[in-house]
């Protein structure tokens, strides 16, 4: 079964539901009237489509089914976390009682066994919930496998572990359409790339977070992935890359805008803080503009959140101590209104553009 086309089938089913609602409205308002034969043909066609999708992919045919699916997704996530924790504590409690060769065998077997089980379940589970749960457990087993080998043989901790964890998490995420594992993989990539960049200046890898600029190459890399590789068949994946890229860019900038001494730049702390305060505004505004142009809602929203954070941080620095509190909050409120007006104009401009296409 091709798991990737389940997303497309669900999207088509959602479109059909919306179409039926709108058709009912148009007929009630007597804007459009279908003959009985046309009505029957459309209904039959849709029923055939929905029936085939349900049989093949177990899609959600209505809103109630969608809500229940959300419940199943949450249960699947909690189940995966609990099972992963169970595996960890099971190993922890008993593995000291086994000879070394058996410990190694158990660790490798748990990784390979859960991986195989995931793919077997994936073939028999059209809903994907059990396969997703198994995939997360397989990833947890692999993380446990590598980290416990390190403990067993007193191996020097290395950032290279992140790259193999990222590889497996991404592979499972793409295979089973699992955004949670993609997020785990992205976090591993961020840790690996930032640690590598940190070590170039001689810093011990585990302290890569102490120089926030170490995160910038990872941000650029993540932002470039959905631009270079089409993710049309993976719902939400491109957005996830962009959101993590922007978080990896803006959070370090926010830190540098307040604690300039953490920077690599050879300037005074005050100068560095000013540079990053200005960059924070400029880059978040540019990101909003890019998001509007490319119609990336995730990018626009993330840009707005950080633009507002940078703005309010500055307001706090400038005025919290020197103006009465009611004036401070009045400024915040008025700024929000101004912001809404600007966004409204942007939206109107976008709608005009859409209309002229």
């Amino acid at each position: 079964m091709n798991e990737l086309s389940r997303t497309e089938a669900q999207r088509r089913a959602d479109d059909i539901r919306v179409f039926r609602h709108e058709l009912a409205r148009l007929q009630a308002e007597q804007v459009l009237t279908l003959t009985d034969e046309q009505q029957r043909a459309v209904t039959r066609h849709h029923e055939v489509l929905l029936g085939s999708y349900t049989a093949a992919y177990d899609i959600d045919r209505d809103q109630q089914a969608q809500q229940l699916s959300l419940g199943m997704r949450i249960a699947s996530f909690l189940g995966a976390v609990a099972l992963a924790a169970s595996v960890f504590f099971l190993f922890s409690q008993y593995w000291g009682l086994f000879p070394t060769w058996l410990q190694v065998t158990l660790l490798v077997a748990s990784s390979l066994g859960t991986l195989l089980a995931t793919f077997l379940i994936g073939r028999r589970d059209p809903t994907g919930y059990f396969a997703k749960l198994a995939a997360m457990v397989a990833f947890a087993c692999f993380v446990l496998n590598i980290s416990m080998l390190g403990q067993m043989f007193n191996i020097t901790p290395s950032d290279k572990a992140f790259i193999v964890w990222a590889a497996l998490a991404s592979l499972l995420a793409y295979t089973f359409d699992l955004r949670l594992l993609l997020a785990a993989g992205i976090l591993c990539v961020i840790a690996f790339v930032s640690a590598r960049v940190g070590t170039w200046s001689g810093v011990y890898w585990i302290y890569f977070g102490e120089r926030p600029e170490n995160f910038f190459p990872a941000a650029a890399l993540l932002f470039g992935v959905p631009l270079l590789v089409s993710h049309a068949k993976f719902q939400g994946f491109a957005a996830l890359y962009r959101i993590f890229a922007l978080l990896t860019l803006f959070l370090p900038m926010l830190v540098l805008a307040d604690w300039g001494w953490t920077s690599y730049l050879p300037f005074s702390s005050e100068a560095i803080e000013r540079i990053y305060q200005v960059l924070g505004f400029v880059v978040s505004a540019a990101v909003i503009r890019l998001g509007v142009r490319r119609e990336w809602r995730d990018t626009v929203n993330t840009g707005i959140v950080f633009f507002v954070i940078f703005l309010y941080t500055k307001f706090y620095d400038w005025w919290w101590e020197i103006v009465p509190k009611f004036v401070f909050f009045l400024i915040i409120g008025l700024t929000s209104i101004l912001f809404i007006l600007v966004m409204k104009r942007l939206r109107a401009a976008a709608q005009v553009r859409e209309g002229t296409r």
Partner: protein
Amino acid sequence: MKLAWSNARALTVATALVAVSNAVALGGVAYNRSGEPDSVLQLTEREIPIQYSSWPDNENSAVHLRLNWRVVFGEDDTFPTVEWLTRDRLRQLGFDLPAADATPDDRLRFARQPAREVFLALEYDGAAYQTMLERARARLRTAEAALAASGSEEKLANVRGARAQVESEERRSSRLFVVAADLDADALRARYPDRKHYAIVRGRIDLWIGSDAINPQIDGIATETIRVPYVYRALVEPYARERSYGERESRYAATVNFGRRHEPWIVQLARI
């Protein structure tokens, strides 16, 4: 570019990834332990006490020992300083240091440099330990002389404290000291060729600010815990269950090898 994906191919790649990752990790272990060890130290519980774990690892049935290293600090300083980590040495290790006339803000900024990875020389039962032992004895002699001159309660308490310190140094404190740091392991080995008393390990050095001056400190050793092999687990497991912290007289001794990658492992362990 478009992603082409099939479950069969994904399973093959995932299996290969798991297999190769394990092979690389285990190959590294084999490489570390191949040939003549880089150093072989005969340590006791004083230097390798039991490592107690907190949640979530407190149910761990494996037993780990901790390399209990120390540093000889400057005797007269209010703030402990590692005397052999001079400004020149720190610069050689890659640290940026402020000029003598730097402002307090600048000094703070330099002191906040993240830890740097270096090789450290661990000395077992050598000159550093003798220095600390002699210092404790000298303090006892001074305290006893002061007590003989004027027998106050305070002086008596000083003597008792100094005597306890000498006893601790003689019977319980670790004799394992970090004595040198370098970016080159071979250079460090050339300075300390005795492989039965000096081990070269990976570690970290960082800076902190005290009394308005920048001071270096040993941030840690990369492989600070050593797992007790299954065959010796029964010997130390009862001690692990005690969860008694603090220094104590040794109840076991172990031969610890350090390999080509400077990673340690226990080759022999016995109760004393």
